[in-house]
């Protein structure tokens, strides 16, 4: 009889334990994201205490995506949606409009987290009131967004608020250490003469944190090739401003880049745009490390060529 009673107690404890795990799982926040870097940020913040749900399946082009019914269905299951909100995920706002029209202005309790709310944004040339949305191709601006997301998620889930904040700080420090280890290679180097062009206006925040500005952006819009006359103007501008380095996008075939290279002798380097491939919590750090390595190589090789030319009395 005693043994039956103890088995029954054990069974009761097991059932209660399992049901509490299920309740715990059910209570986990479902946090949506619109772009790959936000998957990394939110995964690093929430760890296993919330589920990170991409709004759109991998393999889409964020510059031209149109929402599908399945995406809207997924949106309806989320507690929060983390957005870039300044031009890189306009597709999400069309879905949010649809959701609000169905569920009222609050969107059925969906909290929209504007990751860029506190980022000192960069403007876009010749476009008043428009912002450069590529804050995720940067370490400082990404840390800014990590903290905003952690704070907002903490308000939604006060029980885990401190957990989220501490994780955000830990990840920020990891990123900062990585940046410091690379930027140490630039210590004592004079970069005041370096002039940079970029095919796409995506690297302004990244270069800014090294005190480097972009002198010219070539593409009128992402993936839009310049016309022949625009290309000629670009070549003239590169020659006149003595621009030595051109950053372009990894895995994007830009035929005109070769033309510019041949016409001006400019050196080409490739950065990741961070918004392609499978969703992966380690993607941001991995691809940002690649960008850091590329930047260091570009600057070191520029300075090395400059020194060689100075030794031989030539002009860059």
């Amino acid at each position, binding site marked *: 009889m005693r043994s039956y009673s103890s088995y029954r107690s054990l069974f009761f404890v097991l059932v209660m334990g399992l049901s509490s795990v299920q309740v715990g799982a059910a209570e986990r926040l479902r946090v949506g994201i619109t772009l790959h870097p936000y998957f990394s940020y939110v995964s690093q913040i929430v760890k296993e205490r919330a589920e990170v749900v991409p709004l759109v399946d991998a393999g889409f082009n964020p510059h031209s995506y149109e929402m599908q019914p399945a995406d809207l269905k997924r949106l309806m299951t989320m507690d929060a949606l983390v957005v870039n909100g300044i031009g890189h995920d306009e597709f999400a706002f069309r879905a949010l409009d649809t959701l609000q029209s169905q569920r009222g202005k609050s969107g059925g309790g969906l909290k929209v987290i504007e990751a860029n709310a506190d980022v*000192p944004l*960069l403007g876009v040339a010749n476009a*008043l*009131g428009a912002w450069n949305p590529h804050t995720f191709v940067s370490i400082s601006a990404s840390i*800014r967004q990590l903290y905003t997301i952690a704070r907002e998620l903490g308000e939604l889930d006060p029980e885990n608020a401190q957990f989220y904040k501490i994780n*955000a*700080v830990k990840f920020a420090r990891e990123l900062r*250490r990585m940046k410091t280890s690379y*930027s140490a290679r630039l*210590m004592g180097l004079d970069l005041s003469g370096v002039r940079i062009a970029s095919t796409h206006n995506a690297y302004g925040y990244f270069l800014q944190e090294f005190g480097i500005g972009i002198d010219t952006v070539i593409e009128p819009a992402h993936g839009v090739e310049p016309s022949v006359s625009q290309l000629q103007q670009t070549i003239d501008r590169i020659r006149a401003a003595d621009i030595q380095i051109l950053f372009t996008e990894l895995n994007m075939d830009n035929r005109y880049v070769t033309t510019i290279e041949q016409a001006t002798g400019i050196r080409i380097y490739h950065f990741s745009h961070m918004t392609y491939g499978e969703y992966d919590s380690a993607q941001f750090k991995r691809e940002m490390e690649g960008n850091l390595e590329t930047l260091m190589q570009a600057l070191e090789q520029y300075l090395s060529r400059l020194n060689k030319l100075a030794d031989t009395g030539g002009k860059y």
Partner: protein
Amino acid sequence: MSVNSEQYIEPVRSDNGRQESRWVLLAVLLILFVGGYGVTTNQSVPAKPPGYLLLDVKDKAVLTALRNAGDEIQFLAQEGSPLPEVASLAAEGIPPFSDHLSATSRHRWRKLDGACYIGTPLNASNGSSVQFLLVLNTRVLVYWRSVERSHKHSHQSKRTTSACTPDEYWQVLHNA
């Protein structure tokens, strides 16, 4: 009683579309007038771009770093504990306080009144003429001001910057 047809003259307008042309022209002018009036009266005043966009690239980087530092200090603060010293922030590698270790460092940082941090350009020749202020209350607020401008007007102003209370020469960081 017969009518002499040769004496009866009835003027008839030529059916060459002139009248219709006039109506069309009038309609076009009316549309242009209404449209022009609408455009001129409904022009929205473009929002003034935030002042920080005029800062140079290195000062803009300080703004982002300072805003990050503010959150990081708050996230790690124990309730009621004083703000950490600049030296300890630098030792933990938190920019911009740790930037004195780098060749691009342009500011000297101090803690004021135990409630804020101020960054002053190291010297005029290093390129920055901007002071920064990080105030940590319930919110994190980042301010900046041009040192030259505030010096030029300081004799006219009766208000002084009492440590962590920014005067009218400070601009607060916010997006448009």
